[in-house]
C-alpha cells in the first residue's frame, strides 16, 4: 500500500537503545521496528514487589559461578510503548474476525466470544494442574463430559484428551497401534498412507518407527482398492486415512477398506482434520476406524492463535483402550448411591505412558466443551450440514460464473465441506499460477484458500468455506475469483505482481532461507 511507510534503511533504528540523532526524514516516517529497536536504557514496564524478607548477600545464596555473566538483553520499554507496539503489529495481521478465511483443511469457523470468558474464569485459569483431584472436581467433570461427548461423536467408546494438537494425536495413535501389536507379540514394520494425506501423517509414521508406504488414489478420488489390496500384508501395522479425504470427497468404499485393513490384522486410523463434514451424520467408529484424532482447533472452535494452541484428543475402540496415555479421567460411582466423583487414573499398566506434562490443554477443552453445549446434538449436525451446503453452493457459484474453464474442480462430484480446484488450465491459458490467484485475493481482503495441497492435484486450490459464512460472503468470493480471472485474461501481470494493497508485497523467501536471520542482532 502506498500509504505504508518504508522501514528505516538496514532494518530500522539501532538496536538496544544505542543513541543516534535521527534525521528529519527518519522522523517523518513510521518505520517497522521490533520491540528491541524501541528499547531505550532505563525505561521499564515492570515494578517488582517490595522485598519483604531480610535481604541476604546474593553470593551466599547463589554462588557467582552459577550465575550468568550478563543479563539477557531484553527490551527496556514503558507500558504505553509496549501496548502500542503489540497493538501496532497486530494490525499487520489478517484475521478471521475481520474477513473470509476459506483455508482448506483448517476449518476456520467463527470462534464464539463466550469461550474466552469462560476459559478465563479464575476457577479455570488459576487452577494448578497438580491440585488434588478432590479439589478440582469441576475441571475433571468437564473433561469427563468432553470425553463422553467426543466418544459419542466418534462412535468409539474411549477418549484421551492428552495430545496437544492433531499431529500429536496422530503420534499417540500410531504409538497405540504399536503397543497393540506388540502386546500381541507382533512386530510390524509398515504404515500405509494415501498419496493425498496431510504431511503430518508420513512424518508421524517415521517418528513412531515405521516405514511409510503410499497408497494410490483411484480416478474417482477415493482410495485405489487394488493398490491397497496389493500393499496390505501382515507387515502393515496401520492405515491412516481422512474421510472425507483431503480432496473433500467422502470415500464410499470405506467399509471395504476397513475389511481389507482388518483382514491383515492392521488398525485403521482416522485423521480428524475433516470431521467438520460429518458430525452427527456418520461416525468413524461405525465406518470401522479403531483410532480417531480430533482437532479441537478446527471442528470445535478453539481460536487458532496464529499457529496454536490447539488440542488433539483421541478416541479409540475397546481393543486399543488398555494402551491409552496416562492419566485418564475416570468417573467413580460411590457404593452408597451418592453423587459421582471424578479422578485421575495413573495406574494403567499397559499404557503407552505420557505424551506431555499434566492432563492436556485444558483451556482448549473448556472452549470446545462450551461450544458443544451451545450447539447440542442438533446444532452439531446442522453445523456439518451447513458446512457441506456452503461448500457445494460455492462450488456451484464458481461453475456458474464461468470460472470452471480455467479453474476446474479436480474431481467433479458432490463435495463434502471442502473442494479442490486445479489451476493448471489457468496457468496454461491465462499465464497465472495458483499462487498468483492467492496473492491477488489478498487485495480483495479475502484470505486465500490452501494452495498446492493436496499434492496430487496440479496447481491445487483447496477451498473450505465452513458453516459460519453467509450466502452473501460466498457469492462475493465467487465474484472476486471470476473477476481475477477476467483481469488475468487482459493483463496477467496484475496477479503476478499481487498483492499491491497490502502492507508488504511478496517477500523474498529464498533470501530468508539462504541467509537465515532468525533473531534480532543486538
Amino acid at each position, binding site marked *: 500500500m502506498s500509504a505504508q511507510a518504508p522501514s528505516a534503511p538496514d532494518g530500522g533504528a539501532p538496536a538496544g537503545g544505542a543513541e543516534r540523532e535521527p534525521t528529519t526524514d527518519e522522523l517523518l516516517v513510521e518505520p517497522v521496528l521490533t520491540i528491541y529497536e524501541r528499547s531505550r536504557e532505563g525505561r521499564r514496564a515492570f515494578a517488582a514487589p517490595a522485598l519483604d524478607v531480610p535481604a541476604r548477600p546474593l553470593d551466599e545464596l547463589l554462588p557467582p559461578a552459577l550465575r550468568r555473566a550478563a543479563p539477557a538483553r531484553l527490551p527496556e520499554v514503558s507500558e504505553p510503548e509496549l501496548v502500542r507496539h503489540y497493538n501496532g503489529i497486530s494490525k499487520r495481521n489478517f484475521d478471521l474476525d475481520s474477513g473470509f478465511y476459506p483455508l482448506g483443511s483448517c476449518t476456520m469457523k467463527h470462534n464464539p466470544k463466550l469461550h474466552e470468558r469462560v476459559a478465563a474464569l479464575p476457577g479455570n485459569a488459576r487452577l*494448578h494442574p497438580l491440585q488434588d483431584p478432590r479439589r478440582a472436581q469441576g475441571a475433571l467433570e468437564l473433561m469427563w463430559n468432553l470425553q463422553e461427548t467426543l466418544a459419542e461423536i466418534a462412535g468409539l467408546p474411549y477418549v484421551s484428551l492428552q495430545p496437544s494438537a492433531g499431529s500429536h494425536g496422530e503420534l499417540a495413535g500410531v504409538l497405540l497401534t504399536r503397543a497393540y501389536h506388540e502386546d500381541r507379540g507382533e512386530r510390524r514394520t509398515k504404515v500405509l498412507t494415501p498419496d493425498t494425506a496431510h504431511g503430518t501423517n508420513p512424518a508421524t509414521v517415521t517418528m513412531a518407527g515405521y516405514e511409510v508406504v503410499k497408497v494410490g488414489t483411484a480416478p474417482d478420488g477415493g482410495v485405489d482398492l487394488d493398490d491397497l489390496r496389493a500393499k496390505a500384508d501382515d507387515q502393515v501395522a496401520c492405515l491412516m486415512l481422512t474421510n472425507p479425504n483431503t480432496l473433500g470427497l467422502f470415500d464410499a468404499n470405506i467399509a471395504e477398506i476397513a475389511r481389507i485393513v482388518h483382514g491383515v490384522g492392521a488398525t485403521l486410523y482416522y485423521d480428524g482434520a475433516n470431521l467438520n463434514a460429518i458430525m452427527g451424520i456418520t461416525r468413524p467408529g461405525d465406518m470401522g476406524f479403531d483410532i480417531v484424532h480430533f482437532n479441537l482447533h478446527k471442528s470445535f472452535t478453539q*481460536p487458532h492463535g496464529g*499457529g496454536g494452541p490447539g488440542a488433539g484428543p483421541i478416541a479409540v475402540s475397546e481393543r486399543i483402550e488398555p494402551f491409552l496415555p496416562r492419566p485418564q479421567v475416570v468417573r467413580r460411582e460411590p457404593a452408597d448411591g451418592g453423587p459421582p466423583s471424578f479422578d485421575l487414573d495413573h495406574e494403567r499398566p499397559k499404557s503407552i505412558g505420557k505424551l506431555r506434562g499434566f492432563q492436556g490443554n485444558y483451556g482448549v477443552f473448556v472452549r470446545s466443551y462450551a461450544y458443544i453445549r451451545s450447539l447440542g446434538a442438533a446444532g452439531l449436525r446442522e453445523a456439518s450440514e451447513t458446512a457441506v451446503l456452503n461448500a457445494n453452493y460455492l462450488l456451484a457459484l464458481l461453475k456458474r460464473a464461468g470460472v470452471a474453464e480455467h479453474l476446474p474442480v479436480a474431481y467433479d462430484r*458432490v463435495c463434502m465441506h471442502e473442494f479442490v480446484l486445479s489451476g493448471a488450465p489457468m496457468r496454461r491459458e491465462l499465464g497465472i499460477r495458483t499462487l498468483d490467484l492467492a496473492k491477488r485475493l489478498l487485495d480483495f481482503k479475502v484470505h486465500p484458500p490452501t494452495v498446492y495441497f493436496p499434492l496430487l492435484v496440479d496447481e491445487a486450490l483447496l477451498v473450505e468455506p465452513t458453516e459460519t459464512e453467509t450466502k452473501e460472503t460466498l457469492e462475493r468470493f465467487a465474484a472476486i475469483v471470476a473477476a481475477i480471472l477476467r483481469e488475468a485474461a487482459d493483463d496477467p501481470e496484475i496477479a503476478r505482481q499481487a498483492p499491491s494493497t497490502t502492507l508488504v508485497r511478496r517477500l523474498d523467501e529464498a533470501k530468508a532461507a539462504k541467509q537465515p536471520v532468525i533473531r534480532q542482532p543486538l
Partner: protein
Amino acid sequence: MTVYTSATDADRRAMLDAIGVASVDELFADVPPALRLGRPLALPDGMAEQEVYEHLRELAARNVSAEDEISFLGAGMYDHYVPALIDSILQRSEFLTPYTPYQPEVSQGGLQAMFEYQTAISELTGLPVSNASVYEGPSAVGAAAYLAKLANGRARVLVSRGVHPHSRETLRTLAAGTGQEIVEVPLRDGVTDPDALAAALGDGADVNALILQQPNFLGAVEDLEPLAAAAHGVGALAICACDPIPLGILRTPGECGIDVAVGEGQTLGNRLDFGGPSFGFFAATEAHLRRMPGRIAGETKDADGRRGFVLTLQTREQHIRREKATSNICTSQALNALAGVIYLSWLGRRGLVELGELLVQRTAYARDALAAIDGIAPLHEQPVVRELALELDVPDVARVVERCAAEGVNPGYPLARDYPEHPGGLLVALTERRTREQIDRLTDVLARAVAAERSGAETPAGVGA
C-alpha cells in the same frame, strides 16, 4: 438454526436450487446408508449463551484455584502474576483468530512476534537459534531427544533423575517409536551424581545424549558445565530443560556448553489453566539449525525492498519433507509464545533479574523458616532459586497436605509417587505472588500439621469436598 450459522430456510432453498439438488441429504449421497447414524447424537440439547455460561461458571466454582487458597504448588507450573496488558493484547482478534501465517503479506504481525520471541529465547538461553514454539515442556524434552537421534543416530539416552518425571515418562513413551534406550542417572545430595554419570557414560560409544534439568525437579541448581563436558567427552549431545524465570540470573545453557535448551514456557505470561495451553521453547547451537522442529520466522525483504518476515527453513517441515521431516509438528502454541515475548518485554532487561533475585531471597527465607520446624529437614543443601524440597518425618505426607488445605494453604507437591526414595518429600514452590506474610502462614500451618501427624491426631474432616 444455530446462532453461529446464518443460512435461513430461504437461503437453503436458494442454495440447494443453485447446486441442483432437492435436499441437504442428497449432498451426503456418498455416505452409504448402512454407515449413516440414523438417529440424533446422544448429547444434551443446545443451550443459550447465558445458560452455557452458568453451567461453566458452576463447574469452575467447584475447583479450588490459586485464587481461593495460598498455593505453594509448583513442580513444573507456577502461579506467577500475568500482567493485564497480556490479557488485553492476546484478546485482540488479529492475534487470537488467524491461522498459522501461510500468507506472509497479511501475517506480518504474527511473524514479527515470532521473530521477537525467538530473539528473547535466544537471549534467555544463551543459544543462537530458537524456533517459534513447541507444545509444552515435557514434549519439548522429547523433541530434543528426537533431534539428538537425527544428529548422531546413537541408541542410548541418559537422563538425570532430576529431570521432571513427566519429561522422563514422555521420553520413554516416544522411545517406543525411536528405538532409543532411556537410562536414568541418579541424584546424589540433590543433584545429578557425576560419578554415576561417568559410570553410565562408560566408553560412551553408543550414548546419544545426556538430558538434564535446570533447576532440577527438586529445586536444586545444577552445575551444568562439567556435566555437559562429560557428555561431549563421548560425542553425545548435552540437552537441558530449563525453567525460564531462573534463567534470568543463572549461568545460561549456552555458557555451560549445552547444545539444546528446552523448557516449559508457562511461567512467561501464561495462566495455569490446569496444565495448558502453555508453550514449550526450543533453542540450540547453530549446528542444529536445520534439525530444529517446528516453525521458524526469519527476516527478509519484500519486492520493494521493505522489511518483512516469513516462515523460513521450511524444508525441515512435515508439509514439505513429509516422512523425512525433522518433526511432525504443525499447529503449535503461537498465541502462548506471544504471551511469552510480551511478558519478557514487560519484565525487561532489569526486571527479569529483579524478579529472579526476589525469588532467591524469598525462597531462602522460606527454606530457613520451614527447615526450622520440628520434624522437617531440607531434602538437600544445594542452592535453589524458586523451589525447595523438604523431608517430612511423618508417616504420610498426603495427610499433612490435607490438614494444611483445610486451613486454606496448599503446602506443595508430595514427592512420594515420583520419588519413592523420598517418602517424606514435599516440594514447595514460590513466585513473586507469595509474600512473606503467606510464607509465615505456611510455616505456622505446616508446623501444626506436622506436629499433629507426629502425635497421631485424627485427620480433619471435610477436606476436598
